[in-house]
Every structure is written in C-alpha cells, then in structure tokens.
C-alpha cells in the first residue's frame, strides 16, 4: 500500500530519512538543504525517530562526525549543499577511503564566487572524484526513492552515496508524491550489520592508518573496483525497489530516445522541462529524445554510448562548467565514453542555468533547433554554447 502526498523535495527526503530512522544524523544548515536538518530536528524532538542528532559547528565537522559514527558501527545520514559540500571535500575522500556507507543528501546549489544560493551542479560535480556513488534525481519522487535506495546501495557497495537534486527547483517545489509505508521501508533497508566497526565488543580495531606506497596503491584500487561493482549493486537494489513499489529505476532514463534522430543528455530537473519540449517536437514529427543519467558515479560508460549511437546530432547539457576553456564535466565524460566505445555522433555542449538562471522550454527548443541544423548539415561549427547567453540564436 502506498500513501498519496504532496511534498517539497526537502520534505520528501526528510520524510524518507524519518522512515529509515538512521542511528545518527550529523548536519549543518545551508541553503537550500537547511530544511532537512530542520525537519529532522523536529522528528527527533517529537520522538518520531530514535536517531541521535548532532548539531555540529560546520560541514567539515558534519561529515567528520558522520565518519566517526559510521566507523563506530551505526547507520548514518546527513545533508548539505554548495559551500558546505565544498568544505567537506577532504573528508569525502576519507569517508569513501574508509569504505563507510554514509548517505549524504545534496540539494545542488551554485559554488561561490560570486555567492549564489540558487541551483546548478557545480557542487556535486566538484567532488565527482571523491569516491562517492552519485545518484541524480529529476523530481521529489526520485529524490525520495533514491534516498531509500541509497541506504541499501551504500551498505552493499561499502561506499558512501550522494543523492543529488536541484536546489529550490526540486527542494522547495511541492509536487504530488507517492510515499512508502514505514514498515515497507524498514523491511527494505533492514538493520545495518557492519562487519568491521570500532564498537565491536568482540575485537578492538584500528581505522585510518598511514598507508605506505604499496598498500596505498592497492587500497585505492579496491575503492575503484568497489565503484565499478556498484553498477550491478545499483541495478539489484533498484529491482528489489521496483518489486516493492512498482517504480522502476535504471542507471539512466531514456525518454523517446530509441527512435530519435536528435537527442540531449541532461541531469535532474531540466530533464522534466526537456521532456515537454520532446513531446511538442514529436507532435510535429520531429524525432527528438533525451537521456537522463541517474547514476553519474559510477558512470555507465559503456551503456550510455550504446543508447546514443543511432543519433544524428547530440547535445550534452551541463549545469556546471569545468572552466577548462572547453566544456562542462558531463560533456567531457560522456564524449570520452563514446570515444572509448567507438561511437561518433555530432555532439555539442551546452553550459546552461548556472546560478539558477531560468531554463524555459523555449531555451531547450533552441537546443533542439540547433541539433536539427547539425543533423541536416552534418557539421558542427561550434562545440560549446552558453545557453541564453551567447548561443547567437535569434529567437
């Protein structure tokens, strides 16, 4: 049985956390994820969770406390955004390096400077190599579902998981949502049974040693292998989730892509906007489609190119910029994956929506118009565009 509800993204994720009832939550407030520690403090104060909440004095200490609590043997969650995630940078590598299954909610927000509290993906993209599994969510339903799955994925993969959704656009917008029953979630996540943990009464252990060259190299490869193996774990957990809820999740979502001639790759809420544009183009018999990665870490590097190889023109939309004078991170990773799979499609990169700059259906339409030209001419005269800033497009 499921519960019909109307919740914002933050509310949905906080509800999932309540139903999961983790042992410890250590968090520091930062817009736009602030509401999560707020909602959660309410759950704690009113006894609807038995979680121990740690109101730390900074995000660096939030993740450090999570590391201590997880290493000690408890199930641990937290939430942050933007500068908070950036402040956690060194500790994220340590959380994954110690193979701790911490679930970290990230309401995506732009990075300073200049300071900006609105949405883009520069924060989670900025820590994409930190060893966290990264799941991206289009709306509050996906944020809720991925939060529940993240706990199980993390504990199976023995890697921390980041659940990313767009600040304000998803975090603060109320949408219809279907919630699971508490018992369903409790059964799904089960109780956390770590094998090696500090408070194990059978043996004392040491964590976080100095590793010299040989061991360090081997241990880092173990972490990389765990990330590779996580792909199957994500699929496995998603299948179990589908059995319980009927909601199916893959490593990515294809929307009218299989027979498309022009397509885009895009993350999170903009995919929702783009689907409307795809529908309107389809009504005019223009074969448009899109691919929305859900797992960005691990990157489905051989699956995604396979889904794109039939396209005549492709645009990869980045809501963050690598500032490498060339392109955004999603573009560089997807095109390099295509290259390794010998898949060549005329591809362009759109950097868009930085700092919450509005992304309207007209803007996405422009992308598809550009793709139609590329499909017709077979030529790409420019690789990277800044949507709405200098795409040169007269509306």
């Amino acid at each position, binding site marked *: 049985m499921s519960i019909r509800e109307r919740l914002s993204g933050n509310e949905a994720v906080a509800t999932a956390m309540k139903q999961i009832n983790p042992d410890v939550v250590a968090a520091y407030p930062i817009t736009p994820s602030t509401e999560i520690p707020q909602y959660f403090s309410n759950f704690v104060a009113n006894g609807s969770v038995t979680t121990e909440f740690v109101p730390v004095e900074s995000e660096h200490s939030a993740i450090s406390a999570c590391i201590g609590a997880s290493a000690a043997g408890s199930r641990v969650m937290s939430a942050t955004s933007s500068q908070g995630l950036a402040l956690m940078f060194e500790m994220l590598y340590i959380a994954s390096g110690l193979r701790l299954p911490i679930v970290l909610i990230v309401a995506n927000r732009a990075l300073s400077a200049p300071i900006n509290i609105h949405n883009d993906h520069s924060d989670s993209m900025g820590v994409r190599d930190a060893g966290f599994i990264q799941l991206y969510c289009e709306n509050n339903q996906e944020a809720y579902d991925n939060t529940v799955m993240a706990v199980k994925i993390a504990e199976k993969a023995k890697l921390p998981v980041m659940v990313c959704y767009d600040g304000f656009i998803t975090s603060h917008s109320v949408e219809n949502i279907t919630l699971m029953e508490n018992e369903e979630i409790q059964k799904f996540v089960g109780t956390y049974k770590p094998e090696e943990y500090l408070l194990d009464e059978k043996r004392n*252990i040491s*964590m976080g040693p100095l590793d010299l060259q040989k*061991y360090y190299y081997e*241990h880092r490869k173990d972490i990389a292998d765990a990330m590779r193996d996580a792909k199957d774990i994500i699929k496995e957990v998603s299948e179990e989730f589908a059995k319980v809820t009927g909601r199916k999740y893959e490593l990515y979502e294809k929307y009218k892509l299989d027979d498309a001639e022009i397509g885009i790759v895009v993350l999170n809420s903009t995919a929702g906007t783009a689907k409307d544009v795809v529908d309107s183009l389809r009504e005019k018999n223009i074969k448009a489609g899109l691919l929305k990665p859900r797992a960005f870490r691990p990157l489905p590097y051989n699956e995604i190119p396979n889904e794109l190889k039939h396209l005549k023109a492709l645009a990869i939309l980045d809501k963050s910029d690598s500032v490498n004078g060339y392109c955004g991170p999603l573009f560089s990773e997807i095109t390099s994956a295509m290259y390794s799979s010998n898949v060549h499609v005329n591809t362009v990169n759109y950097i868009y929506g930085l700092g919450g700059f509005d992304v309207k259906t007209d803007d996405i339409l422009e992308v598809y118009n550009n793709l139609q030209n590329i499909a017709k001419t077979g030529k790409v005269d420019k690789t990277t565009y800044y949507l709405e800033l200098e795409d040169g497009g007269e509306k």
Partner: protein
Amino acid sequence: MNNSNILKDGNSVEFKTGAWRARTPNHSKDKCKNCMMCVPFCPEACIKQKDNILVGIDLDYCKGCGVCAKVCPFNAIEMKDNNND
C-alpha cells in the same frame, strides 16, 4: 584485502625497533631496587615487570634513548655505546 582497517589490535609488536639503537641499556639486577620508576617512563613500553619485580628491558624494541637510565634513582641502568666494530 578490501580496506585499510587493521583487525589485530596491538600487532605492532611484530615490528622490531631495536635496530634503531646506537647505545644499549644495561640493567644491573643487584643495584635495582624494583622501584618501578623506569617502567612507565619508557617511550617504547618495553621495560617489563612482573609483580613489581623488574624483569628486564626488551632489546627487540629499545631505541637506546636513555630515559630509563636517567630516571633511575639508583643508577641501576647504564647506557653503553653499541661497539659497532
């Protein structure tokens, strides 16, 4: 090996540090009054006692720092340079 956790507490005793020594403590049983002062002052925790009787200095680990010799109120420990002939 799939993580960096160390599951055998105190296993550093498998690593001998005695080779660091440039000089060696000589503990004289008859001068020793078993006052126990040297035992907790040893940075290597390698001065052994049994029911407050000083058993000896474990040269597998002693780094020759000389703290025990200086702390001993009865000069029962004498540091001798290792004759590295």
